[in-house]
């Protein structure tokens, strides 16, 4: 049994026991004859005195009981090693070229470009949320970064986001536009993909 399940069980036990105290007091000291009657889920309920007190308190506590905070992500660290198997005459690959994704969350895009992605947001020791940036790339389109952490800032396209910390939602009101490469002037800088000529540096 997990700690969360034990905690839930403990809460139910407490909720069941606590109403006994005022109910017992009502029963023993006041000899109350108060009753509760009426329809409930298709049944006609008629209970009296201490039992009324018990159930009123029980259901009230049950309704306001603390619920476990589920459905959120925790940050874990997974460590290991990648090993690249290749023929002897092949060059050792550059490990920085490895691109890693993890699923879930599955970051898919629906028809019309709509999306709703569950993303991990780290909370620091002071409770501040550190939102990640979204990086959106598509073949033959210019990549776009959406800096959720900083809002609209130069270097990225302007966007309008509404943060709801209670519901844990970020609503981006403005469409995120990606420019096709054909809609932009041709980038002249890319040299032809020819075998290396020995020139290893940039400009």
């Amino acid at each position, binding site marked *: 049994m997990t700690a969360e399940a034990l905690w839930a069980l403990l809460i139910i036990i407490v909720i069941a026991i606590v109403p006994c105290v005022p109910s017992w007091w009502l029963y023993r000291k006041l000899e109350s004859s108060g009753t509760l009657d009426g329809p409930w889920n298709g049944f006609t309920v008629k209970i009296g005195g201490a039992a009324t007190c018990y159930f009123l308190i029980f259901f009230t506590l049950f309704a306001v009981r603390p619920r476990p905070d589920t459905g959120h992500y925790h940050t874990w660290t997974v460590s290991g090693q990648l090993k690249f198997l290749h023929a002897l005459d092949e060059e050792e690959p550059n490990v920085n070229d490895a691109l890693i994704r993890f699923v879930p969350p599955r970051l898919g895009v629906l028809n019309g470009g709509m999306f709703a992605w569950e993303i991990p947001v780290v909370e620091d020791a002071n409770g501040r949320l550190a939102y990640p940036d979204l990086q959106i790339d598509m073949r033959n389109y*210019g990549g776009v970064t959406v800096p959720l952490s900083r809002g609209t800032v*130069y270097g990225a396209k*302007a966007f309008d986001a509404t943060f709801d910390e209670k519901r844990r939602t970020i609503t981006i009101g403005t469409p995120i536009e990606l420019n096709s490469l054909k809609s*932009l*002037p041709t980038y002249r800088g890319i040299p032809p993909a020819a075998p*290396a000529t020995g020139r290893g540096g*940039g400009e």
Partner: protein
Amino acid sequence: MTRSLALLLAIALAAVSSPVAGRPQAQAAGRPSIVRGYLYRMTSQGQVPAGGIALRLRSPQYGVSAQAQTAGGSQRDGGGMYYFYNVQPGDYALDVLVSAKEIYQLTTVHVRDQPNEKQPVTDVPPMAVR
């Protein structure tokens, strides 16, 4: 006394209505440009696009930009390319972010004002990375 107050008020109003008042970091110097470039790695097979590399622009006037990442995939599909948007004319340092603490300046970028271009674009020459 009244004239002095009126003069002070006029000066204050002029200062407030000035386009640069209170926003020294965000002066509208010209039309914002797209800044783009290409990063590659040298291998025995030649140049290959370097995908997944984080970059940023930095300037004393505008501070640090949003990060951009080079796209993955082949060169023909736009792999190795990075794009910064809404960059005002000026001089910038282009940094590579290896990690939060490892940041290297790759080059400097001059973004010139292009008032007549429909979509101003500034191309940074291709650069090799390790």
